[in-house]
Each structure stands twice: as structure tokens, then as C-alpha cells.
């Protein structure tokens, strides 16, 4: 442990298909309702999958002109809302210019999203590289008036956990005073829906959207694409205690490995994912039997869910019979680059409310995914330590441990 001591989460900014802001999302997660609906932002009639978890209104953050905000690209709106509201929630908004605020964000394919959105509006930005001078994280830094170092990372669905691990490390090294860390993605676009659809990764249960995302269920047929973001304000414990800040949790441990097997298909060899989980538990200094809740990556694909179940059974050992596991993607859809961050938020909810968000649509649990499921309804549970798995294309395996503080 470095002189910094513990790294705590003292602020949350989020926009998800279940709502915007921590309280609204927490209530919705524990209500166990699906946010999956038919795609409304464009005509998806010719797509194999025509459903999504969509953020219908991204709030305009304080200090931003609503008209100017409305003109921003959707992904830029998510980044700006999540970062500004995390600073506000943590109580650093007014003093953000007085400290070194670092920023590490998972941002999904921002240039592809910008070019696609512009082209579908009839623009030619993709042919005008001179307009591509500044990336989204630089623009966000400038807009918020932040001066600390900033990095945007991309490991597909695992991006948010990498961002939290890097942000935690920057605080431990003393490179920043506080750090924004999380991830945003706006994947509900025509080409993205078509790309994942043609990979045959998406659910085609178009006639029953709310039942389409069904991780661990025998009837699962792929994931439901989603969008949104969650950003956390990370702060050294001493600083947080000194100003009596609200503390959501400690970022207790992180682990990351690669399959080195295939760009899309999970490895049939579970060792790298097992190693990522064990790294995170060791980093947090806890034994598997001390885990109170696992937010699984489980997206609802036939191969991925059973592969993760094998990993969990190996890592948890005999504790697998009583450590509760759920996949909140059943309610939100799969937020892609933002998934890990959104699911870290679900873990904060479990820690704060002492209740477990469920896997909805788990009507017929797949025997290959035998775990201690939180099926269909939230339930009260003592939670001191929550674990979130996030695996991604490119073979990334990540695990995050959050602990009550």
C-alpha cells in the first residue's frame, strides 16, 4: 500500500437506460425492471435485432447552455454529463480548478461514432481529417476547466475496469489529487447494431423486448445492445475524511488479463479469466468466501455465460453455493464500453442499500450456469464486498473489487 492509503469513491455521475443519476438508477435496479425497448432513434426495421437499452434523455449539466448541449454528439453529451455530475456529486465542482483532477475514461470508438453520426446526417466529416484535432476527453477537460492528466482507454466491454485501475494507481502514485474514472458509450447506432447483429451476437427476440436480455437462462439467444455511462470521482481516503465527504465505497482491488485466443470468442481455457479474478481478490486482500456479491459480466450469449460460470465456480470454490451472483445486463442491456462502469455502479447500490439487484428473465436457469443466482427479484443481503467481472472483445478479462468504507 502506498502512502495514499485507500482510494475511495466519493462521487457518481451516470446516465443509463434505467435512468439518470445514482438514486434513480439504484431504485430501478432494485425494482427489477427491464429498460429494453424497440429501437426508436432510427429505423431499425431491416436489422436482425431491433431492440436496445436506450438513454432517452441525457440531462444537461449545470453551467451548460441547453441549446449548445443539444447540438453536441450523443457520446459527448454522455461524457460531459457523467463527468460534470460526478464532480458535483462529490462536492468538487466549485473547487475543481484548485486541484489536479485527473481523468481516465473508457470511451467507445469515439471517432467512428462521430463520423457515422455526421455521415448519416449528410455530412462529410469523415473526409475532412483537419476537423479531427481534439478527442472527446480533451474537449471535456477543456469544457470543465480541468488541468490534470487525462487518458481514454478502450478494451471493449472491459474498458471501465481498466479506467478505474489506472485512476486508482494515479492516486497511489500521487500524480493527481482526485481522479474521474469510468466509461461511456453510445452504441445504439445503425452501423453498430448491424455490426453486432451480423456477428450473430445479439438477441433476436424482437417481439418481446423486455424478456430479450436473459443471462444464465436456458432460453438466452444473445445480448441486447445498450448505451450510457457511469463516471466515479476517486479520492484518497485522507482527503475524503478531511472534508467529511459521502463515501460510496473503496476501490479495493483490480485484476486484468488477456485470453490471447480470439478477438471475439471467449477462450475455452478459463485460466486467464480465473487469473484476473484472483489478481483482484489478492489486490483487495480478501478470500473468495468473503465475497458478498458478484455482478457477473454475463451478457446473455450462449457461450459467454457458461464460460463465466465455470470461472466463478473455480474461483469461488465451495463458496459458490452461497455467494450471490446476478447480471444487471438483464435490465439495462449491454452498455458495451460503458458496461464495466455501469456494473460498478450496481455494486455500489448493493453496498449502500444492502440489497442485491437481480438477474431478471431468469425463468429457466441453464444447468451449465449453475450458480447462487439472484433470480428475478431483488433481495436483502449483507454486502461488505462486491465483485464485478467485465470481459471484452480482444480477449480482455477484468475484475474489480469494491468494499464498504
Amino acid at each position, binding site marked *: 500500500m502506498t502512502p495514499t492509503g485507500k482510494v475511495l469513491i466519493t462521487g457518481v455521475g451516470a446516465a443509463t437506460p434505467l435512468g439518470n443519476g445514482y438514486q434513480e438508477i439504484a431504485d430501478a435496479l432494485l425494482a427489477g425492471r427491464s429498460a429494453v425497448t424497440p429501437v426508436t432513434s432510427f429505423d431499425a426495421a*431491416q*436489422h*436482425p435485432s431491433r431492440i436496445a437499452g436506450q438513454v432517452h434523455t441525457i440531462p444537461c449539466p449545470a453551467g451548460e447552455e441547453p441549446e449548445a448541449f443539444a447540438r453536441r454528439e450523443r457520446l459527448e453529451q454522455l461524457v460531459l454529463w457523467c463527468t460534470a455530475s460526478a464532480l458535483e456529486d462529490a462536492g468538487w465542482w466549485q473547487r475543481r480548478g484548485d486541484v*489536479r483532477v485527473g481523468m481516465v475514461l473508457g470511451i*467507445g*470508438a*469515439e*471517432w*467512428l461514432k462521430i*463520423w*457515422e453520426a455526421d*455521415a*448519416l446526417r449528410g455530412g462529410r466529416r*469523415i473526409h475532412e*481529417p483537419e476537423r*479531427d*484535432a*481534439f*478527442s472527446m*476527453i*480533451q474537449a471535456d477537460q477543456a469544457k470543465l476547466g480541468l*488541468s*490534470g*492528466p*487525462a*487518458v*481514454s*482507454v*478502450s*478494451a*471493449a466491454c*472491459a474498458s471501465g475496469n*481498466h479506467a478505474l485501475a*489506472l485512476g486508482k*494507481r*494515479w492516486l497511489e*502514485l500521487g*500524480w493527481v489529487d482526485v481522479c474521474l474514472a469510468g466509461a461511456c458509450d453510445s452504441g445504439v447506432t*445503425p*452501423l453498430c*447494431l*448491424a*455490426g453486432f447483429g*451480423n*456477428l*450473430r451476437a445479439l438477441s433476436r427476440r424482437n417481439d418481446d423486448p423486455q424478456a430479450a436480455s436473459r443471462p444464465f437462462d436456458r432460453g438466452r439467444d444473445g445480448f441486447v445492445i445498450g448505451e450510457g455511462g457511469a463516471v466515479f470521482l476517486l479520492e484518497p481516503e485522507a482527503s475524503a475524511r478531511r472534508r467529511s465527504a459521502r463515501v460510496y465505497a473503496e476501490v479495493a482491488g483490480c485484476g*486484468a*488479463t*488477456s485470453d*490471447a*485466443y480470439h*478477438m*471475439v470468442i471467449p477462450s475455452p481455457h478459463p485460466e*486467464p479469466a480465473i487469473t484476473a479474478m484472483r489478481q483482484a481478490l489478492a489486490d483487495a486482500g480478501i478470500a473468495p468466501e468473503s465475497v458478498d456479491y458478484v455482478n457477473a459480466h454475463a451478457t446473455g450469449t450462449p457461450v459467454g455465460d457458461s464460460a463465466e460460470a465455470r470461472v466463478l465456480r473455480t474461483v469461488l470454490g465451495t463458496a459458490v453455493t452461497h455467494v450471490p451472483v446476478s447480471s444487471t445486463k438483464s435490465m439495462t442491456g449491454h452498455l458495451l464500453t460503458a458496461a464495466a462502469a455501469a456494473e460498478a455502479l450496481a455494486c455500489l447500490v448493493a453496498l449502500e442499500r444492502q440489497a442485491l439487484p437481480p438477474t431478471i428473465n431468469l425463468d429457466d436457469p441453464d444447468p451449465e450456469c449453475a450458480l447462487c443466482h439472484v433470480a428475478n427479484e431483488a433481495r436483502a443481503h449483507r454486502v461488505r464486498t462486491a465483485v464485478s467481472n467485465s470481459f*471484452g*472483445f*480482444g*480477449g*480482455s478479462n*477484468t475484475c474489480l473489487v469494491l468494499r464498504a468504507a
Partner: protein
Amino acid sequence: MTLSSTAATASVSAGVVCDVAAACALEADAAQLLALRQGIEPACGEPLPASSLKHLDEQTLVALAAVYGAIRAQDLRVDFQRWAVVAAPRFLGRAALIVSLQRYAVEGAWGMSPHFIPHRTLHSVSGTVSMALGIHGPNFGIDGGPAGSSQAVLAAATLLSTGTLPGVWLLLSGWEREPLVPLAALVGKHEAFPKCRAVALALVPRGCAANGLQARVLPGTLYRAGSNGTTSRTPLFGLDELAAAVAAPPAPGAHVAWRLCCGGKMELANAADGATP
């Protein structure tokens, strides 16, 4: 060359100093890209199957070739299993997206290639290199724009600072000039086809390599004149700047310094005579 497993304990609060165990800068024209796609001779490990090479982005091909080039140049005999990969491609997938947009307009959803997402998104370069070298440490992509080079340096330094990784491949890639039409339309038009560039650095903890090349990464706030010892004349770090330094490394005892646009600075030094940046 083999690497020592005994790294010096370095104070990282002021920055990260590491050895550059191997480096390679490459650029490829249309003919060279075609040759790479038809089969890259691996410097270690198994070759990627032709079915994978066929769909790789051009930047991924050149970055992988640069990694193999670096390994060969230093005759690195290393098990890369626990290493990490940090890759910063610049505007990956622009030309491919132009094709996809055209096909989507004509054919609808059916026209979108299922290979686009795996091979044209930011993690594609790092993921492919991890597969090719059997790397099981973390891999991720960075930013995707002009700022990505600086950000990748900071991210790689952060990973090395943990003391848990034996090495990190830092990969920067991009086009000489952005291709603004489908690349297939440029085949055979030698003058019009831009070159694709990549630099690979094998970064290891200080004291692990013996060739004298060292990198020092100093984090800092965004550029303000005079902060972190930088001035307005300190050049900005980027792919082309690093490629030039790799092609003509500093003389023994000398170093070159750049500003990182995400905050801080990077120095590349030749400490062969004992000088330390």
C-alpha cells in the same frame, strides 16, 4: 538478448524510468501491406492464421510487423506471457468506415461486415498483438486521435509502475496522411496510396535491459509554459517524433525530450555511458 529479472527499485512518485529493451519503427506502402497481409513471418510464437490476417486493419499489420522487427533487432529471447500491450492507433478504421457507410446506404444492415467491429475498433491492435505473442497480461487501446500517442505513454508508464509486469509493449500507429477513399480504390496508384506507420517499444523495468536506451515519463498537469521544466519550444510527442528518434537514437549521454499533450513529458535517453535521464 535476454532480460535480467532483477529490476532496480525506482521511485515512481516523480515519474517512471524504464529501459527500452527493443524498438522498431516501420512504414509500409501498398505493396508492403499486401505482402504483410499474405503472411507475416513471426519472430516468435505461432503465425497468425491467414483467416485472421485477411481481416486485420492495415495499422494492426504494421504494428505487429514492428513488434516482430523489434524482437529481431535485439534478438529478444523472452517469454512475453505476462507482458501487457498498450496500443494507440490513430484514426483506425476511417477508410473501412467509408466503405461500410456506402454499403449501408445501398444494402442496409446486411451490408455491414461482421469483421468491422473485431478489427477496426480501438482495442483491435492490442488484442491482435496479444494473440500473436501469447500475451496474457492486460491489453487495451488508447484514444484513437492525435492525442493518443501521449496518452499511451502515460498509460504504459502507469502499468509499469505497479511492479507486477515484466514488460509492456507500447505501440503507436497511423497513416502518413489519412486515406479518404476506400483503400481498394488506391491499389496500383503508388503515389496516391499513403504509407502506414508504426513504432513498437518494448518497455521493461529499469535495470532489466542492457542496451542503454531508457525512457522517462514524468506526469504533470496540462501544458503551461514552464511547468515540468517544459517550454513552448519543447516539441510535442507523437508517432512521427518517436519514429525519428528510434531511427536515429540519441548519442551516448544524450537525450531527447517531448511534451505530452495529456500532461507531463517524456524523455528518451541513451545511458550507455552511465548517464541517466
